[in-house]
Every structure is written in C-alpha cells, then in structure tokens.
C-alpha cells in the first residue's frame, strides 16, 4: 500500500486567498464595496470548496493515516539543512482546513455587512484574505520552517487588523502590544525549531520517500522518554525542544503569562476578533502542539507544564471574564479560558480531545463574536453591557442564534461544546501521563472553570438580551451622540448579510459536536469517530505506564472506565446546568451587580507587567541607552572626532601666510629641489 500520495490541488487552497489579497491590496482602492466583498468572499469560498472536495475525495485514505503531499519547490538547501515549500494533507490538517475555511467564509460574508460604509473596506478585506493565506500555509506546511512563515504571517495580519482603526491611539497600542508579546513567544518557537534541527537533523514532520526526506518525528520516536524532572527542561534534549515550542504556543494562543495581548486585541473590528482572535489564529498554538505530539509524548515534563499552564489559564481567565462589562472583553477572556482547556487536553495526552475542542470552539465562539458584532452594530457601536438589556425584543434572530452559542459554550447536553468539554474533563480525570494526584487536581480546576464559564456566559446573555432597557437613558446622557452616527436611538436588527452567517454558525454550534460523540453515547458503541480520525496523525496518550497496564484484565478495566465516564458525564452536565441556572437567577435579579474590583481590574496583571517589565525597559532606555550611551558615548565620539580635526586645523593654519606669491615660490622651490635631486644623482 502506498502511504504517500500527491495532491496538486493543495496549492490552490492557499494561493486563492493570496491572489485575492493581491488584487484587493493593489487595485481595491478603486473598486466598489460590492466587488470587493465578492472577490474576498469568493477566494475564501474557493478554498473552502476545495477543502471539502479533498476531504471527501480522500476520506478513506486519510482515515487510514495516509498522507498527501504537494511539493512546490525547494526553498532552502544548505548543507544538510533543507526546507521546502511543500504542503501536507493528513487527517489533522484536513480537519483544520475544513473548519478554518468554512468559518472564515461565513465571517467574510458577515464582514461585508459589518464593515459597510467604512473607508478602508478594501484594506480590511485585503488583510483578511492575506490572513487566510497565512493561516492555511501554517496549517498545510509540511515542515516547521514553512509553518513558521505562516505563523509570522498570521501574526502580521493580526497586527494589521488590530490596528485597523489606525487613527485611534488605543488601537495602535493594542496592535503593538500584540505584536511584541507574540515576538516573545516566537523567539521560543524559533529556538525550539533550531534545536530540533540540531538534534534530529531535519525540520520536516514526516518522511517523504519521493523526495528522500527523513522526518524529525522519526527521530522523536526513536528517543527514550525523558524523565519527569525539572532538570530535563535545561538538558537540551527532547524536553527542551518541547518546552521551547510550547513557549511559542503560549504567545500565539494567549496562555499564561503571555495572554495579555488578546483582551486588548478586541480593539480591531469584530469580525477580526471572531476570525483571528477566537476561531482560527489563536488555535495555531494547539495545532502546533498536536502536530508535534510525538515530541511531547516523549517529554512528560513538558506535558505536565502544558497541562498546569492550561488549567491555570482556564481558571484565571474565567474569573476575569466574570467581571468584565465590555461584551467583547467577556468573550476575549472566555476565549483565553477555552484555549486553556485545549492545552490542558494536550497536556494530559488527549491531543484528539484538544483538537476536538478547537473544532467545536471555532463554531460557537465565532458565532458568539459575530452575535456580539451584530449587537454592537444594532446598538450604534455601543459595547458596554451596562447600556444594553432587553434587546431580545429588537434583535430576535441575533438573540436566538446567540442563545445557541451560549448553550454550546456552557456545555448544555448534546450541543457541540458539551461533547468536547466533557471529553477533555474525562481525559483529564483518567490521564495516565501525569503522576497520581495531578489528574484529579486538574480535573477539579477544569470543572470549576466549566461552572464559571456557564455563569459568565449566562451573565452576558442576560445583561444583553434580558432585563431593563438601559440604553435609552444612557443614550441621551452619554457622550455617545457626538460620534456622528446620526441615527442614534432604538437598537435595530442587522442586515441579512450578517444574519445568515449567524444562522449557519448557530446550526454548526448545535450540530458539529456529533462528529465526536463519546463511545458510551454513540449508537452501537462505534467509538469516538473524531478521535479515531485525528489519531491517525496525532499520537494517542501512550506513556511509559502503558506497558504495565496492558495486562490480562483489560475488560474489567474497560468496564470500570465506562463507569467513570458516565459519572463524569453526569457531573459535568450538572455543573453546566447549575452554572446556567445560578447565573440566570442571580443576574436577572441584579444585572448591575458590582464584581470584586480585583477581578474587574483583571488582577492588575497589566499594571504589574507595566511596573515589572515595561517601566524598567523604558527607564533603562531613557537613562542608560539614551542619556548615557547615546549622548555621552556615541555623540561624544562623533563630536570628539570633530574637535580633534578642529585642533589640528587650528594649529596648522599658522603656516598660511595668505600671500599667493609666497605659495608659488614654495611650489617652484620644491620643484627645483626635486629636479635638482634627480640631476645630481
């Protein structure tokens, strides 16, 4: 059986948005809004259609773990180092391109309505298409360096789109913050890839016999497991690689301690928040970790760090999300929290469950963000939930679709979020990767987070759509009227181009969970389809403990495991319902309940970072680099050179008499001396 195939259509998937970006970027300024929207959406639609076509065409092969390559050209070839511009389709990247292109297409459609009348319409869609190109390159690359190209590309587009309203200071600050914080992570990622090359001699993921390439993961397979010890991190082995790559992931996927950029990234237009800062780009870190799963499974220390950071981030961000007033900030912290879940899943060895959560999260979080965007437009660019309330009367469809998103993220039974979150909780509880007390501790943290998630999402829904209509009195009093919208007043429902994507994504948020129904709930116990599919490219939770466990009484263990799964399923359902019920009752009665100020101020993390990192750098730059090194040393050297020349010149000018004839006399005398010398000799 041939394990490797060629699929030349892959290149078109990434090139279509690039061509769109080029057309819009170069010629878009002279185009009308309809044409721009058409070009932007059709290029993404093309990628989406091709992704679906390839998925169904090669479904059987992908399910058996076969791989499809599209070799474009050899990019770098120096000594033994080789990096190709070549694409790889396997079950992991297939899942990713499916939901990326699908969700992105509907967000593009939504944006054609959301951005209507904006001066930078063409610029916005050029960036969006460029983002799609970068993201698809990131996902489809078949080596780490090309992945890094996409990785930096999405970072660039994120920067451009956060700073889209570049006349506003806060947008520029947020864009710079995102870029700089990401840089810290990228530094770790780049170091990790370099070390991987040093150790494995290759930056390709897998073998490709056709090109004579040996994959780095083969090297990883051949390694013995590193010990579970802090010293392994600095040993320069596989654990070091894993930890460095994870540093990259914490930057891109907004984990502790590098999450601070994501809440500020909400300064960009809402479709950007939905596409880049919720559904796709921020999950690139999870993708990278899942892609490198064969490295991680050999580095238990890195797994442990990842699980702990993931769980800590999930809880930390959820508590902050509980106390925000800006509707987009709530969703931003919710995104960070959900990303924490994904890393927790990867950290306990359940890469499949992590990717499943990425998959379902893309739908319901994109839906929630777009719903928030619809609310913001309907409220004439108001984002503060204190000035909303009672909107269900005015925005019926937005309200209904957001309810679907709310139920999905809170883990309401049989919706998408329920399946994926339950999967993560179960895998955490039964993890064999981490030593004894940790699975229970992490499970407890994750369960508390699930409760908080249900509470703060209920708060968002209640504050926005139910309760008193708080916008009327606020509208007349606030400074809002001078924003030049002219039509301030009653909220209104959004146009069709925004509602249709909402409906499609709502259907997605409700239904996509069924591709990953856990074994105990599936009809005829066929097993978790999604997990089976994804585990063709990603390593399952194999550990050093496995060998001992694979004894004779596997059946008893199997029954035992099912019992645990049922219990956990019931517990997490109860958690979701309790959270939602409590939130509903509490926030209906006291919608404007003042949360603890520690939470409202986000634990003062930004202030701490400012004092601990930003100010020292600033002061150091001013007092040392500028006032000492630049002024004293560099300027001093330049001025010193000038003064030296002045000194010499000032001395030598005494030789000049100012009489032209005396100069001539000296010249003639000199000439005569030279001639005389030659004559006499």
């Amino acid at each position: 059986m041939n394990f490797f195939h060629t699929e030349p259509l892959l290149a078109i998937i990434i090139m279509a948005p690039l061509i769109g970006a080029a057309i819009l970027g170069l010629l878009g300024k002279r185009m009308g809004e309809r044409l721009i929207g058409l070009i932007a959406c059709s290029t993404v639609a093309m990628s989406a259609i091709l992704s679906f076509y390839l998925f169904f065409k090669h479904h059987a092969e992908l399910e058996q773990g076969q791989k499809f390559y599209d070799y474009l050209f050899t990019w770098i070839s120096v000594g033994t180092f080789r990096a190709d511009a070549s694409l790889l389709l396997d079950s992991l990247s297939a899942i990713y391109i499916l939901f990326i292109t699908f969700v992105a297409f509907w967000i593009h459609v939504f944006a054609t309505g959301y951005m209507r009348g904006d001066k930078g319409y063409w610029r916005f869609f050029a960036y969006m298409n460029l983002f799609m190109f970068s993201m698809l390159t990131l996902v489809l690359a078949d080596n780490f360096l090309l992945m890094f190209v996409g990785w930096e590309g999405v970072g660039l587009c994120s920067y451009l789109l956060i700073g889209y309203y570049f006349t506003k200071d806060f947008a520029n600050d947020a864009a710079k913050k995102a870029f700089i914080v990401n840089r810290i992570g990228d530094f770790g990622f780049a170091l990790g890839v370099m070390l991987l090359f040093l150790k494995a001699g290759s930056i390709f993921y897998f073998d490709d016999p056709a090109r004579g390439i040996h994959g780095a993961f083969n090297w990883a397979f051949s390694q013995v497991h590193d010990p579970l010890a802090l010293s392994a991190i600095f040993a320069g082995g596989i654990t070091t690689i894993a930890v460095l790559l994870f540093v990259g992931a914490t930057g891109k996927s907004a984990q502790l301690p590098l999450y601070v950029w994501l809440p500020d990234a909400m300064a960009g237009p809402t479709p950007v928040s939905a596409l880049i800062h919720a559904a796709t780009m921020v999950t690139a870190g999870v993708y990278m970790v899942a892609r490198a799963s064969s490295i991680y499974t050999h580095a238990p220390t890195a797994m442990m760090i990842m699980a702990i950071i993931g769980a800590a981030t999930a809880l930390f961000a959820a508590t902050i999300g509980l106390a925000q007033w800006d509707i987009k900030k709530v969703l931003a912290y919710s995104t960070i929290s959900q990303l924490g879940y994904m890393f927790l899943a990867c950290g306990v060895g359940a890469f499949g469950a992590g990717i499943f959560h990425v998959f379902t999260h893309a739908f319901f979080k994109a839906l929630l963000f777009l719903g928030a965007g619809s609310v913001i437009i309907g409220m004439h660019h108001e984002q503060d939930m204190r000035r909303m309330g009672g909107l269900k009367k005015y925005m019926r469809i937005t309200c209904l679709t957001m309810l679907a998103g709310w139920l999905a993220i809170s883990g309401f039974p049989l919706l998408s979020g329920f399946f994926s979150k339950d999967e993560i909780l179960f895998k955490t509880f039964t993890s064999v990767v981490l030593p004894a007390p940790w699975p229970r501790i992490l499970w407890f943290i994750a369960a508390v987070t699930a409760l908080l998630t249900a509470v703060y999402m209920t708060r968002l829904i209640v504050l926005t759509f139910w309760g008193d209509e708080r916008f009327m009195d606020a509208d007349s009093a606030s400074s809002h009227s001078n924003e030049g919208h002219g039509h301030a007043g009653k909220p209104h429902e959004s146009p069709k181009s925004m509602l249709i994507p909402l409906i499609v994504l709502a259907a997605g948020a409700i239904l996509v969970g069924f591709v990953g129904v856990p074994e105990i709930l599936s009809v005829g116990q066929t097993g978790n389809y999604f997990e089976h599919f994804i585990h063709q490219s990603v390593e399952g939770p194999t550990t050093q403990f496995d060998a001992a466990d694979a004894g004779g009484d596997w059946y008893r263990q199997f029954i035992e495991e099912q019992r645990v799964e049922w219990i956990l399923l019931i517990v997490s359902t109860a958690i979701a319902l309790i959270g939602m019920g409590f939130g509903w009752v509490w926030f209906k009665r006291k919608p404007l309940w003042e949360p603890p100020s520690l939470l409202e101020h986000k634990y003062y993390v930004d202030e701490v970072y400012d004092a601990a990192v930003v100010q020292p750098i600033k002061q150091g730059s001013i007092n040392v680099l500028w006032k000492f090194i630049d002024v004293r040393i560099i300027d001093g050297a330049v001025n010193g050179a000038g003064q030296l020349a002045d000194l010499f010149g000032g001395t030598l000018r005494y030789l000049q008499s100012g009489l032209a004839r005396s100069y001539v006399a000296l010249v003639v005398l000199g000439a005569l001396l030279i001639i005389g010398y030659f004559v006499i000799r």
Partner: protein
Amino acid sequence: MVPLSWYLGLSAMLFTIGAVGVFIKRNAITIFLCIELMLNAVNLTLVSLSGFFGDVGGQLFVFIVMTVAAAEAAVGLAIIISIFRNRESLNVDEVDTLKL
C-alpha cells in the same frame, strides 16, 4: 627639419614666462593665463618628444592635459567671477580671509 632642441628651448622659454608671470602678477586673470601658458609649454614638450621617440603615448598625455585644463579653466573662471562679484577686485593678495 627643425631639431628637437629648438622645440625644447621654446617650451622652456614659454614655461619660464608663465612661471615668472605667476610670481609677479597680482591680477587673478593674468595669473590664470600664465598657468595656462605653463600647461601648454609642457604640452609642447610632450608632443615634440613624442615625435622624436616615435611614441604615441606622449600625444595621448596631451589630450588628458587639455581636458584637465579645460575643466580647470571652467572652475577657475567661475571662482574668479564669484570673487569679483563679492569683492569688486581681482587682486589675489586681498583674498586672505582664512589667514589668522
């Protein structure tokens, strides 16, 4: 045929006239013309020696000297004109601002 020594003698005379002119004259234009005279005296030497030795290299040098002389004439005259505009005078002894 005129012997070589005549050419060299004429050239030496021209050069001396030029050198003495530079020495004793104060008018910038006159000095300038004297410099040109010296240049052409040298040119004459080069041409005549080139003919004497049958080596075309000497004549090539003459072209270079003439090119440089042309450039020098342009720049020099421009300087002289601007000095005159500023000072209403062409006396080189008066142009000594840089002197301490």
